[in-house]
């Protein structure tokens, strides 16, 4: 690992993103629109307080998953990855560069979406707001890391997009957003205990419902962080210097 190469790669990815205004717009506006829609659907019921928080955990994850897996796949198919791997660039530098760039994007997205949920939609948050933002950022980094991993298994951009439902939808169904996790059938409950998005949503719920959620959030955050590290390590294994 080399700090300079990691940082210039992160800076390069952010510069590329900046030239694509529409993608940035979508990353910031879409979560707000969906949260707004949810608030409206559950108007005058207390359900929004529980669901709204979970959504804040799910969006950054899904959006970053898609953007990252397509961006890295483009790097593979355009030949730039082949070229980079003939330079002193390490696989870890490459993965961390991407993760850092999207983490920076995630901070922006999390701040905008949280502000919208709290100040516009009236989401009640019992715990400290900064923890909500911190968890959202961690969820986004998780999405990026899994997206990097998934792109290693895709040969075309069509396949990469198909990985979204394959990787994300099962986690979405099992994360406790639709049916609370303790009411899932036994086997599904155990599967849900392993999947990272479950902890993303758990952490969000603790922050919104609990006045001082510190240790609960820290536990979930720890598991998410483990998943992030594991995905980045596995993902860097899918980067092959030599190909057929």
């Amino acid at each position, binding site marked *: 690992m080399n700090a300079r190469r990691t940082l*210039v790669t992160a800076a390069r990815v952010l510069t590329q993103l900046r030239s694509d205004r529409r993608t940035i717009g979508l990353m910031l506006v879409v979560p707000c629109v969906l949260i707004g829609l949810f608030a409206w659907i559950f108007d005058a019921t207390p359900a929004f307080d529980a669901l709204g928080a979970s959504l804040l955990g799910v969006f950054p994850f899904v959006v970053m998953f898609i953007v990252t897996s397509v961006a890295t796949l483009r790097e593979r198919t355009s030949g730039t990855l082949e070229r980079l791997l003939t330079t002193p660039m390490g696989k870890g530098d490459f993965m961390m560069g991407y993760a850092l760039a999207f983490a920076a994007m995630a901070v922006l997205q999390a701040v905008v979406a949280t502000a919208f949920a709290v100040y516009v939609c009236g989401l009640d948050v019992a715990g400290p707001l900064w923890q909500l933002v911190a968890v959202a950022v961690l969820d986004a980094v998780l999405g990026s890391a899994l997206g990097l991993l998934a792109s290693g298994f895709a040969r075309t951009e069509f396949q990469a997009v198909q990985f979204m439902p394959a990787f994300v939808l099962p986690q979405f169904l099992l994360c406790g957003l639709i049916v609370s996790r303790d009411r899932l059938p036994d086997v599904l409950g155990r599967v849900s205990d392993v999947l990272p998005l479950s902890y993303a949503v758990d952490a969000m719920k603790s922050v919104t419902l609990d006045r001082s959620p510190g240790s609960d959030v820290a536990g979930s955050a720890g598991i998410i962080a483990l998943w992030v590290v594991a995905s980045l390590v596995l993902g860097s294994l899918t980067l092959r210097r030599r190909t057929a």
Partner: protein
Amino acid sequence: MKVGEAYFHHMMKNAVEIDHLRVVRGGRVVLPDLSVRVPAGQVVGLLGPSGSGKSTLIRAVVGVQVIQAGDVRVLGEPAGSVSLRHRVGYVTQSPSVYEDLTVRANVRYFAAILGASPSSAEEAIDAVDLGSHADTLVGRLSGGQRSRVSLAAALVGDPELLVLDEPTVGLDPVLRRDLWNLFNRLAAQGRSLLVSSHVMDEAARCDRLLLLREGQVLADATLPELLDRTGALDAEGAFLNLIDRAEEAAR
């Protein structure tokens, strides 16, 4: 270049040494058993019909090709070694640069990875004559301009060996002449170059020619030697003559 390195470079006879290289791609034997040398400090042209294995050979030299057997040594080290990554510049056949970055941002990024200064990025941009387009997005450039950005990104670290896969494709005669002047100048400074090409009149600019057909070396000689051997008047004639003879022999 450090003093010790320069000394080593001076002593080295061959920039690339390939022995009994065998490469199978997608179930096809592309290079059955190839042995060849690229002398240091020269421009070696890699010529051959489409599909003859030029890009495959080049990929083996830069260490991105899975090989089945054989030995590829580059600047005295096994191809793809960590220590070679500062010393070898590679240009892929289709331009591999970022379309959503400007010319300058692309070249500076590759410079930063190699630890080269931003001013060396400017020099590389000037060397490929893109100074007036430095702030244009690569996605808005013509095909020939894009391949020059790709070349600039390989020149930027001042590598000892440049491995270029059809760097002059789609360029006009003036630009091609300028780039070949650059290649010859680099060789005169002691750099080694392996350059694949489809354009036969470029053979005249190479110190040596490697003629590939179906993964086999048909000729490994200087242009005068080739003309002498075939009785042809130019590189294209010699090339066709050798291919025809090989086809005859295969029948």
